[in-house]
Structure formats: C-alpha cells, structure tokens
C-alpha cells in the first residue's frame, strides 16, 4: 500500500505534553517539515523558550538549547556566531518574546543576526496558567486581568511583527495563523521562506503564528479556532510585513 502521509523525521517520537486543541503541535510539525524539506535538520541547532513550548527540545529531532525566559535570541546569537554555517532557530511564545524578551528580540533583529524565529502568539501566558500577556486583547479575561484587559491601566496589545518590521536588520517578517487548513498551508510557506532567508545569509527572519489556547481561554478547541479568527486576526492582521527586495 502506498504511503500517503508520514510523521516528519524532524520530530522525535516523544508524545508532546500539549493540551488538546492547542496548535503548538501543528506549528512544531510545520517547522520540522520545513527543516527536512530544506535539508537542514542534520545541521540545525534550535533554542527552546520558557513557556508552554519549554520542552520543545524533546520534540525537535536536532541539537537544541533550552534558554532562560525571553533570552532565546541572545542564546541563538551565541550559537550562530560560533557556527555560522549551521541552521539556527528559536521557538518562542508571546510572554517570552514580547514581554520579558522584548529587548533580546529587538536587538537580535537590529544586529541582523542570521537566525530564524518562530513566534507563537496565543495572547496569554499558557504554562503559568492564563495570566495576561502584552498580546492579550482588550477585554480578554486572564487570571491577572480578571475583569478583562483594561486599556487605561495596561495599554493596548503589542504588535511585534509590525514593530520588528521597522528594524532594518529584520529581513523577513510575516504573520500567519493556523486556524484553518488554508492558513496552515500559508504558514508553512512563510516558514519555508523565512528559513531560506537565513540560508541565503540575508539577515534576521521571524514568522509570527497566531495560535490558540483553549485551556486558558476557557473554551473548546473548535470555539478557540473561531475566537482566533473573530478576535485575533482583526487586531493582528495576517500577511507579510517585510521581505528582501522590497522598496521601503
């Protein structure tokens, strides 16, 4: 019988710890498939964050570092400067990248570090149990915003892709979502394109992936996909913000 689909070699056989309906699993697969398709898995070095994907080092089938909260871009800088010919990537959540690690991601982009970042934005702190993130939407409830996020006291959600696209050293910036098969295909395409930017030595690349957190959003996985579409995409528009060769 012909094989029509098999698990990518870019992932280990370890069962993931992710909650039912969480989209980390989809994003892991896309990243792993992209590495295999580009032939870089065997020389890849990844950096796992602190957050729900802290154990990503057990799932990606390549050399990995686990980094302190928010510091993955600094760790990746150290790795890439030592091994400029290896493929280096970070995999970070929104608390990690947009809050505690804001300085590290901005300056890695600013230096034009030649690694790739997968930024998973689910608008909440997942692992610690649903606290407010800088990306939490106005009115969205979190355990540290029990009455809903209040713009007057906590500001508006931060749009990292738009911010990073203003930095000259960032060669590739795109926001995607994984809420529908069509969007998943677009996400894969963006990840491949972002990784190629690194392989071509063109600078820093990031793909922001809008993701769900049914557990901490307090809704079913199906409702979470709809919530992402109805609430996150309008505030965090999908699309490419920057790629090489564009007139600025």
């Amino acid at each position: 019988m012909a094989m029509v689909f098999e698990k990518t070699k870019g992932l280990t056989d370890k069962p993931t710890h992710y909650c039912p309906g969480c989209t980390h699993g989809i994003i892991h697969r896309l990243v792993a498939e992209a590495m295999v398709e580009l032939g870089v898995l065997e020389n890849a070095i990844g950096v796992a964050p602190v957050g729900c994907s802290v154990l990503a080092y057990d799932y990606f089938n390549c050399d990995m570092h686990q980094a302190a909260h928010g510091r993955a871009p600094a760790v990746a800088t150290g790795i890439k400067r030592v091994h400029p010919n290896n493929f280096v990537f970070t995999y970070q959540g929104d608390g990690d990248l947009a809050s505690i690690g804001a300085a590290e991601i901005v300056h890695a982009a600013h230096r034009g570090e030649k690694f790739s970042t997968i930024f998973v934005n689910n608008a909440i702190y997942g692992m610690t149990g649903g606290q407010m993130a800088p990306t939490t939407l106005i009115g969205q409830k979190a355990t540290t915003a029990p009455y809903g996020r209040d713009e007057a006291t906590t500001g508006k959600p931060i749009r990292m892709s738009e911010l990073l696209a203003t930095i000259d050293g960032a060669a590739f910036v795109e926001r995607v979502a994984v809420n529908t098969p069509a969007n998943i295909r677009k996400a894969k395409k963006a990840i491949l394109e972002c990784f190629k930017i690194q392989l071509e030595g063109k600078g820093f690349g990031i793909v922001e992936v809008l993701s769900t957190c049914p557990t901490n959003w307090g809704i079913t996985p199906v409702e979470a996909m709809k919530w992402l579409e109805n609430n996150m995409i309008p505030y965090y528009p999908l699309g490419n913000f920057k790629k090489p060769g564009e007139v600025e």
Partner: protein
Amino acid sequence: MTKVLMKGNEAVGAAAIAAGCRYFFGYPITPQNEIPEYMSRELGKVGGVFVQAESEVAAINMVYGAAGSGARVMTSSSSPGIALKQEGISYIAGAELPCVIVDMMRGGPGLGSIQPAQGDYFLATRGGGNGDYRMLVLAPADVQELVDLVIEGFDLADLYRTPVMILGDGMIGQMMEPVEFKTENKKELPAKDWATVGTGGKRKPNIINSLYLQAEDLEQHNIKLQAKFAKMRENEKRVETYNTKDADIVLTAYGTTSRIAKTAIAKLEKEGYKVGLIRPISLYPFPNEAYEEIGENTKAVLTIEMSSGQMIDDVRLSLNGKVPTYFYGRTGGMVPSPEEIVNKVKEILGGDK
C-alpha cells in the same frame, strides 16, 4: 618570552586570546571597559567574534549559547553588571557549560561607585544566582597572576564544565605591570562531545538544558553537581602563605588588599612584630586548611577587605574558634592604607611583640 607592560584589563583580553578564546560577549561598564574594547580590536584579527550585547543579561545568555556550542568564550563586567548576569550564570552552572567570567569589582550597593571594592565576595563564592551551585572563583593580586589565572581558568572551565569567575577589582584592572604569557597546556582536557554542532544525522540530538521537571531527576542532577564541587574542593584550592607557623598575628586578605597587607607586614617586621599572611587565591574553593595550620602561638587573625566583611565568614568557618578573629575594612571605593593596617595590628596586639 619577553615581558610587556600592560594594563590589567587589556592583559585579560590578551590572556584570553592566548588561551584560545575566540568569542567575547560584553556590555560597557566602568572600570572594565578596556576588556571589551581590547576584544573588539583584537578578536577579529585571530578569526574570533566580538559582540557588544544589548545588556549584561543578553551578553551572558550569548555566552550560554556559545559555550553550549563548544566554544571557548568569555564575558566581563563590573559589580552591577555581574549582578545582572546572575540569571545566565545559574543556567550555565546548571547546564554544566564552561566559560570564563571576569568581575572587576567596584563600590556598591546599587550603582555605588566606579572605584575598586571587594563587595562581590558573597555573590561570587555563594553561587550568586538561584539554586544550589558554586563556581570556581580565582582572585589575582597582580597583573601577571591575572594573566595566569585567566589562561588557566579556561582549562579549569573545560575540565570541570563550569563557569570560572576571575574576581579582580578596579585597581587590578586599571594598573599597569609587566607580564608574560605562558600557555603550555598542562591539562588533559575532555572532548566536548556534548556540544551542539548539529547531529550530522549520526547521533541523537545533544541538548543543552538545566530543566528537570521530575523532582527525583533534579535531585540526582544536584547530587552530581555537588560531587563536582567536592572534586573542586579536593583539587583546586590555591593559597599563598607567609610565616603562618611562627606569627603573633596572621593577616588574611585577597587581591588588592593582600598587597597592602604585605606592605604593612614589612613595616611591622621592621618594628619587631612577627606577622604572617594567608592570601587565598581561590576563593571558591576556599583554602581552609591554611587557617587550620596556623601556629599555636598565634594570638589573632586579622581579615582585611575592601568590604564591610564578607571573606571573614569563610575565615571564621575555617578557624572554627581556634583563634580570635578581627576585621578591618574600607568600603565605597576607599582603599585601606598600610598605616591603617599597622595601627589595627598594634591595637589588637596591645603593644605585645
């Protein structure tokens, strides 16, 4: 090899390069700026990489990445910057990565001053960051020793897979003295088969990590780390002693203050006093045996520091009540004079010679 006249901070850079260090990640802070400046000028010439990080926090995490990738790597800073690096140092110790960290101490707490001080002794010798860990802490008293300890520090870091801290101060960093670079590799070093270089499709992934979610696993990891620290205590104590068997009083000090203590001892000897010295070179592991071996006739031990009294805790633990202990310290960037020490000794001995 001929000697060259070098400023302490520049000598750190030259020693690191001589030791094979090719990666430096740092952030400006006085009084150690000549280290990153030297590295930015010289590393490129030997095929190395200098990165001025956005912060000390980022710099030490770049060190974590580079060390985990198998490189000889260094960072340097001064007290407030070293405080910021504690996050990364704890991760580096937990993940068992080798690196050299230089702290040219300045006055504190807080922003403090930019003058020399020794207020980071606790931070350096107690681990500094979160969790149960120690690291090798070496305290040079002159520029030649600074060079020697930086070079040896890289070997020790590789041998034990540990961060090694070189604990100097603004005085050591800023003074110029003649130095030579001796780089004969004395140690047989283990291969870095744990480093992340890409699997090449030939082995299972290498993972650089300090996370152990199962309590049983983390305890086992801690037991392994403690065994390593015990081995350091067994093999890596360094100390200079002078006349400790037949002294009425033994002075003890490290780094800059040990040099002032030596000048005070010369003055006191001229006046007929019998004064000894214990100069710890390794602060962790602390050379406690040197204190246990003090002669029976010694009436007192005087600890001298540019702090309010930090190393004195280890001196007291080592003496274990055997001899009365006294303290003399200056802080905030003030440096004790030999005369102040002479007067303190006379006060303690009450005129007894």
